[in-house]
């Protein structure tokens, strides 16, 4: 199975997993269960912890392009790792910081690592369902970091960093604190000028990274 097929399969799997809870809800609505016949249970205890931690990974498809590059860009199949830490600001909204690592290739033989450090907001439209939507913004740089006036970097490195992300997913809470999530995310990195391992520089590089994966959730 090629990397791209694997990415498609994982993406479809993630999307199907989003559909499962909806059908489960539909089935549960068709016939009343014991719990529905029983007197209404007291409201669940409020969650005391405001901490929110997520860690996971997935299959990524990356495309890097630039103004003077081949219009089709260069696609790379890769794996992404991400960690989120933050807090709950309301019943529906979490704010936090995301660290994401993923590789992409741009007219070089070896894929270049891209690192994102992003502020993110996650929104749950329904309190009793696991669906969430998210968006964030911060920095995204390639290779060994961002070129600056202090110190010298070994190539590959980028000159600038603007990172944007959005995505959606579904959280399956296993108990009050722990759960797993299936997610689909699109990260975009405006990494300015990329200096490759050969020393050549490519201007105005934009990387797009689509990641389908799973993660462990603690809240």
């Amino acid at each position, binding site marked *: 199975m090629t990397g791209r097929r694997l990415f498609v399969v994982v993406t479809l799997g993630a999307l199907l997993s989003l559909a499962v809870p909806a059908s489960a809800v539909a089935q549960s609505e068709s016939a009343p269960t014991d719990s529905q016949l029983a007197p209404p249970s007291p409201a669940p205890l409020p969650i005391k912890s405001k901490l929110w931690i997520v860690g996971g990974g997935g299959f990524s498809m990356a*495309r890097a392009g630039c103004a003077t590059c081949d219009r089709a860009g260069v696609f790379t199949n890769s794996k992404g790792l991400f960690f989120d830490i933050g807090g709950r600001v309301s019943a529906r909204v979490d704010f936090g910081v995301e660290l994401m690592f993923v590789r992409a290739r741009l007219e070089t033989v070896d894929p270049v690592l891209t690192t994102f450090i992003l502020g993110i907001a996650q929104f749950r*439209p329904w309190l009793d*369902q696991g669906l969430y939507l998210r968006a964030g913004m911060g920095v995204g740089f390639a290779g060994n970091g961002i070129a600056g006036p202090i110190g010298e970097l070994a190539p590959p490195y980028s000159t*600038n960093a603007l990172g*944007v992300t959005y995505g959606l997913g579904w959280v399956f809470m296993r108990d009050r604190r722990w759960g797993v999530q299936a997610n689909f995310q699109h990260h975009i990195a*405006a990494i*300015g000028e990329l200096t490759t391992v050969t020393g050549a520089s490519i201007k105005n590089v*934009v990387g797009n990274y*689509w990641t389908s994966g799973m993660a462990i959730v603690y809240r």
Partner: protein
Amino acid sequence: MARAIGLGFGLPEDPKASGTAKPNRDADRRCPGCPIRRMFRPYVESVWLNFMYNGINHLSGHPTADIGARTIWRNLRHGFEWDVNPWTVNQIGHPYQGSNYFTSGRAHGLTFYESTAVAAFGSATWEFIFENNRASLNDLINTTVGGIALGEVMHRLGWLVRNPERSSKGRNEMLALAIDPIGGLARMTSGDSKRVAPKPADMIPTSVKTRGGAGMMWQGRTIDDADGSARPFLNIDVDYGGVRTGKSKVPFGAFGLEFIAGGGSPVSQANVRGRHFGTPFGKDGKAQFSVFQTFDYMTNNAFSFGGQGVEVEVATKHSLSSKTSLWMAATGGSTILGAVDTLIRTPDSSKNPELEGYRPYDYGPTLRFGGVLELQRSDVPIARLTYQGYQLNVVDGTRAFHVLQRAQLDIRIPIVLQISLGMAGEFFFRKAYYWPEGNRTAETSQLRLFAAWSQK
């Protein structure tokens, strides 16, 4: 399917259960004067708006207007790039388009934050589906974030002029339609424009102060330069809700708007600062801490800058005498994506046919910083010294840091009632640190003489 989705959004299980042909939806209003809350309609309207804008592009022969399944698939597959649209299209046109999506959400009873999702949806669908060129990252940010800022201002100004408690209110509704077209159309098509009901409480500001002026403007680096450069201008400042005082978490419950037309370009300045959070602090609550969402647009002979961001303001007021006081503020923050005109033409653009549509301005995240000293007499500003700086780090364009600075002294001499004579001197300075091309600078001065009026 639609019913299942509707249930998910908390809509009634059977809207026709009452047995009437047209169900009474008043229960879906947050207040008697509020619009009926419709979760899906803004998204549908956003798609229609995209069809409309695509049709306009078709009629004007825009090369990006021809779309089809192949262009959509290609755009989805390739992700985001940067575009080369003209300055006003990206810095004013796209935020205005985004405001249409956003105000559609507000017009159908969605909250500020719910409407931000509509702006993002409208912007993303436009980029991926309704243009045949690759989706543009700068457009996504300009349209969404700029659209939110402009949209909420339009929504609130529209409600400011509406008077829904009157039975004959056509003129007010038409004026509101001009300010907030999507909100006005929604009221007309739903029949709300003819409905008599109290104005929504959250659309009634605690105060509204407007200041305007009209006069002549001279620009140039020296007096000789400025000689013969006189141009007319018109400016309007609005303080909606009192941005300098009070405790609030209501997004744009207070905002400031500065607008200057003329002086060398149709719009030479348009700034919006919408407050998301404000609280007094310190001894007797004399100091104020506020968080603002910002929208900037300015063009002058030294630089053109546009962007959308967030800034924090710390301010305090000191009494100098029984009638005179000094208001001081320091601001700092970030512009998510700023745009600045470049001082260097990319050498490749003349050789590479792909760069024919070369964009003469660059993009990058920006730091912003500034301060204000304002002398007040009986709470009326008579002199104001303002400094505003931006430091833009280019992520698309010629590799550089741009430092942009603006200092302004504005003096008003009261003449009679609310009329005063005003003079404003401004100095614009920029330094661009290009590498390897080296540093470049540009500067200009500006003098404005005008008659001004103010209204509380």
